[in-house]
């Protein structure tokens, strides 16, 4: 595998085959370039339409560059009477932030307990958590709605926050990470120093869990931000999340493409920024098998 390229070149047959095994060929780059373009093009097209006027969709061939109407489209978006777009954005920030902070906190706390503390029933409880990960959430949406009616929570944001304060997936992910990232000696030492169990978590374990907690936080935020079905069921159109604002637009303005695309662009923008800044960490998180859809 360490044959230098100039030496390998004249040697045909086996040696060359071995050397070439893991090298990218021009065909590799071409394939990946096509995949890259296909992945990014719809997002780019969304931005292009959001910056133009409505006659854009009838243009043949379709325009390639952004136009100068982003400002006016965004103004129309926030002035729109049906979308409640500003409220949707604000609600989504509040809801996603609450769910993210809470999930990271409770999941790392429980993950620490499962990985580093001894207690009776530990394995059985962990197994239960893994089993709950297999249950599709939407299955229970009808009784969940009935609970919200009983509590008087329909149309209130707590209805889309409280059921998601901590997930089995988050607990399991933090447990896996804590098991290998937090040395037992560290926990012992902190105890000897007089820390309570929560003190050990707060001062020693949580800092050590930061990388995994970051990835869990990113993905929880993304998932909450993009959730659609449950908010649609339990919130009304006047108090929406940003995805419901998009849905509001699609109800009455489905042929006003620049308005709708301005809406989707603004709705995707926060996550796009997060993705640009933390792209590497997100890739790392997915590849460590840490992320579930």
């Amino acid at each position: 595998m360490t044959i230098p390229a100039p030496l390998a070149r004249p040697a045909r047959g086996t040696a060359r085959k071995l050397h070439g095994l893991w090298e990218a060929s021009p065909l590799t780059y071409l394939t990946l370039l096509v995949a890259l373009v296909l992945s990014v093009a719809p997002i780019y097209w969304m931005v292009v339409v959001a910056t133009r006027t409505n006659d854009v969709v009838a243009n043949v061939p379709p325009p390639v560059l952004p136009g100068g109407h982003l400002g006016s489209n965004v103004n129309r978006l926030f002035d729109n009477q049906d979308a409640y777009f500003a409220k949707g954005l604000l609600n989504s920030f509040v809801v996603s932030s609450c769910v993210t902070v809470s999930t990271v906190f409770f999941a790392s706390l429980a993950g620490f307990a499962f990985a580093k503390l001894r207690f009776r029933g530990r394995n059985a409880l962990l197994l239960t958590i893994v089993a709950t990960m297999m249950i599709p959430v939407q299955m229970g949406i009808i009784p969940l709605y009935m609970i919200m009616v009983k509590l008087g929570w329909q149309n209130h944001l707590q209805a889309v926050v409280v059921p998601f304060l901590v997930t089995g997936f988050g607990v399991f992910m933090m447990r896996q990470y804590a098991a290998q990232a937090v040395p037992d000696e560290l926990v012992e030492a902190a105890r000897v120093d007089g820390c309570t169990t929560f003190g050990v978590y707060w001062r020693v374990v949580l800092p050590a869990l930061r990388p995994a907690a970051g990835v869990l936080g990113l993905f929880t935020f993304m998932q909450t931000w993009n959730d659609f079905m449950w908010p649609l069921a339990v919130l009304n159109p006047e108090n929406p999340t940003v995805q419901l604002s998009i849905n509001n637009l699609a109800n009455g303005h489905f042929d006003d493409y620049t308005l709708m695309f301005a809406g989707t662009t603004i709705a995707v923008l926060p996550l796009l920024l997060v993705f640009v800044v933390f792209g590497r960490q997100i890739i790392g998180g997915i590849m460590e098998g840490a992320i579930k859809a």
Partner: protein
Amino acid sequence: MTSVGTRPVRPAPRAGGTPRAGRGRALLARLDVKASPYAFVAPFFVVFLVFGGYPLVYTLWVSLHDWGLASGTRKWAGFGNYGYLFGDEQFWHALENTVGIFLLSTVPQMLLALLLANTLNRRMRAATVFRIGVVAPLITSMAAVAIVFGQLFDTDYGFVNWLLQSHIDWHTGRAWSWTAIAVMVDWRWTGYNALIFLASMQAIPKDLYEAAAIDGASRIRQFWQITVPLLRPTILFTLIISTIGGLQMFTEPVLFGSGTSNKMDGGATHQFQTLTMYMYDNAFGHDRYGYGAAIAWALFLLIIVFSLLNFLFVRRAGGTR
């Protein structure tokens, strides 16, 4: 770690208090050690029991009633809702749609993700750029995807018809609308699954391939006889996750139907109405919560059946080739 050295020194001052205070503190410390673990894992179980486990079981109870929230009806129906389900043509139609869209999206998606992962699994420049690029679709919401692709698949002005130089009515035809929705799903998830496969591929020892190459096995044969069999557990995991998600498909077809009077219909002839949409429409649209709950249970069964099929399929596929 240096604090380990202070072990004999540190606790000493604490022992210097009055004996009673010392005992009280020791008791508290024991309580802390005994009870803290349970307190730490309790939040998950509380949230899950109230908002996850209980609703799931309660769905069964609701499904045995004629249950309307707006009308206030709540009448025992036994298995009436399930009996109705078997004769309900629209249910079977939605079931066909769900399975059709699921197969149309999952089969190409898995193959494409495997190929993409295999292509990414080389020494190359700008590897991170390509990896980030192919998972970029993941950040978009399904609602946004459905709206953008709804326009791309427009009959008269859509980019897809322009590219194909065709005039396909992607929204009206049953097979065409399934295809359009499957394309949306695959666009969003293929790169993500490819990265999961890539992570597993990187764990395969390279000398396996070297040995195969010396024996004269072609790249394609190496892929099917080494890579794919060794990826079996990962493929199974990904398939099951895709099955759970795919059979519950909701957001994409709902917003793909923008412009029709009832978006839960999935088009004028229900050509792309999924089971979840039918459940949602019955419960929240028509105040038939009991029947909606019965559909939810049917869907749950369907997911279990398909997960088992995945299991059998993956075991068979990698077994004796």
